[in-house]
């Protein structure tokens, strides 16, 4: 039996008089990998930021692990459960800290013991040896940085990982490596993923179900294999699919 890991009900995010998120609802099951796709400005990142508490939502409700949250306030327990990986691996690491300090920070906040072993294990898990431990972020490549960002998220042993376009800043070959790494981590740790991307290929590869968003609303929610079978009802989904197949010379 599956249970709900994360539930969003009628979430409303308004900037000035613009509704960035217009009463969005969705449920993500435990250990599910859930994708959110849509064009730029469709509200997919806003949704992720509102869930993580980086921006506030004005109305609606958010339930994580059967606990309710609203506005921007999240407690430490929430951040133990939910971790986020950001789009830009160049901006998401503190420029003046070594990898060691970067990974120590979340451990210190949540009062973990045995930090040395945990940091070593985390680096190992993302495929970087201990040789990277005392490097600064500017000494790492984009893919290596994103691995560090993933290690930082995983090190507090969260149950849910929010992924905001985790590979869109990386080139194609690195993309595949990072996606495989994430997939491996999900299997090993029984994680729940909520992944935002404008790349339908990435989403259909990684996710079991996906929501298609447009203008701050969810157009439809469908299983990933429905994309291949072209079993969708919304016209917009078809447009998005055609667009993602790229330009074809006929």
């Amino acid at each position, binding site marked *: 039996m599956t249970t709900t890991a994360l539930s969003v009900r009628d979430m409303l995010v308004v900037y000035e008089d613009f509704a960035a998120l217009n009463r969005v609802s969705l449920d993500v099951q435990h250990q599910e990998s859930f994708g959110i796709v849509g064009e730029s400005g469709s509200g997919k990142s806003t949704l992720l930021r509102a869930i*993580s*508490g*980086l921006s506030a939502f004005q109305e609606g409700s958010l339930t994580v692990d059967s606990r309710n949250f609203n506005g921007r306030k*999240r*407690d*430490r327990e*929430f*951040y*133990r459960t*939910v*971790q*986020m990986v*950001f*789009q*830009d691996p160049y*901006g*998401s*690491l*503190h*420029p*003046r800290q070594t990898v060691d300090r970067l990974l120590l*920070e*979340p451990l210190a*906040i*949540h009062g973990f013991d045995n930090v040395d072993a945990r940091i070593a294990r985390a680096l190992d898990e993302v495929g970087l040896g201990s040789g990277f431990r005392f490097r600064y972020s500017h000494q790492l490549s984009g893919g290596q940085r994103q691995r560090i*960002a993933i290690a*930082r998220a995983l090190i*507090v042993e969260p149950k849910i990982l929010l992924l905001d376009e985790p590979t869109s800043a990386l080139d194609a070959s690195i993309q595949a490596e990072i996606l495989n790494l994430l997939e491996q981590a999900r299997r090993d740790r029984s994680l729940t993923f909520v992944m935002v991307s404008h790349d339908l290929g990435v989403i259909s590869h990684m996710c079991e179900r996906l929501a298609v968003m447009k203008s701050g609303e969810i157009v439809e929610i469908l299983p990933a294999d429905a994309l291949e079978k072209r079993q969708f009802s919304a016209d917009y989904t078809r447009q998005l699919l055609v667009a993602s197949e790229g330009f074809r010379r006929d």
Partner: protein
Amino acid sequence: MIRALRRRPVLMIGAFTTTLLTAVALLSLFWTPFPPTKIQILQRLKPPLEQGLLGTDQFGRDVASMLMAGAWNSLSIAFAAVLIGATVGTAIGLVVSVRRGWLEMLVMRACDVIFAVPPILSAMVLGAFIGAGRFTAIIAIATFMVPVFARLTLAAALQIWTRAYVHAAIGMGRSPLKITVVHVLPNIANQIVVQVTIQLGLAILTEAGLSYLGLGLAPPAPTWGRMLADAQTFFGQAPWLALLPGMAIALAVTGFSLLGDGLRDMLDPRSR
């Protein structure tokens, strides 16, 4: 040394000038050629090299010694004022960058009000209440330094707060205070250091202005500003009395400006 000078001439000249001035100011605490306040009325208005290195003023006091003691008075007031202004201003800027909302409105409008009142004017008002002197000068100058640093810090900190690594820290459950100390402050420290240096030059200029108007240190303590004011009467007979303190002020202000510019170029090449 020569290579460094060629690579960063602005920085090196600024550093050299300010180091020299600071050294002279510190030296004056222990040694000056003559006691700077000693009056020798028979030796009055002697030109440079005839009596002492830089001549004497209308009371026969040694100008070189007065300039040295003046350097200490000027620099110590400037340093204290900028230290207070930078600390208070930076703290305000950091707090506002976390809270924002109505507090940001309030603080920024307060800054506008302080900017609108010239520091000389606020020093006169302050002097009327608590009397002219070192403390008045420091507080008056610090008061107009605070909004400079508050604005700079706020603008820089807000930029840092939008960075993904700060979002990551929020996502770890870090408190705003910890994020400010660990993530924001180290990444804006460069800008603050540069501003401190530039403000030191301005503070010296303001202090000279205050003591020129008689709002600085009380006589007989020598200050560059009052030397300039006193020299006006004798400009026809003894022009060096006006030129020398004027040059000292110009040298100090230029030195700190160059040092600030040089530091900025070195620490943040993008902001040129």
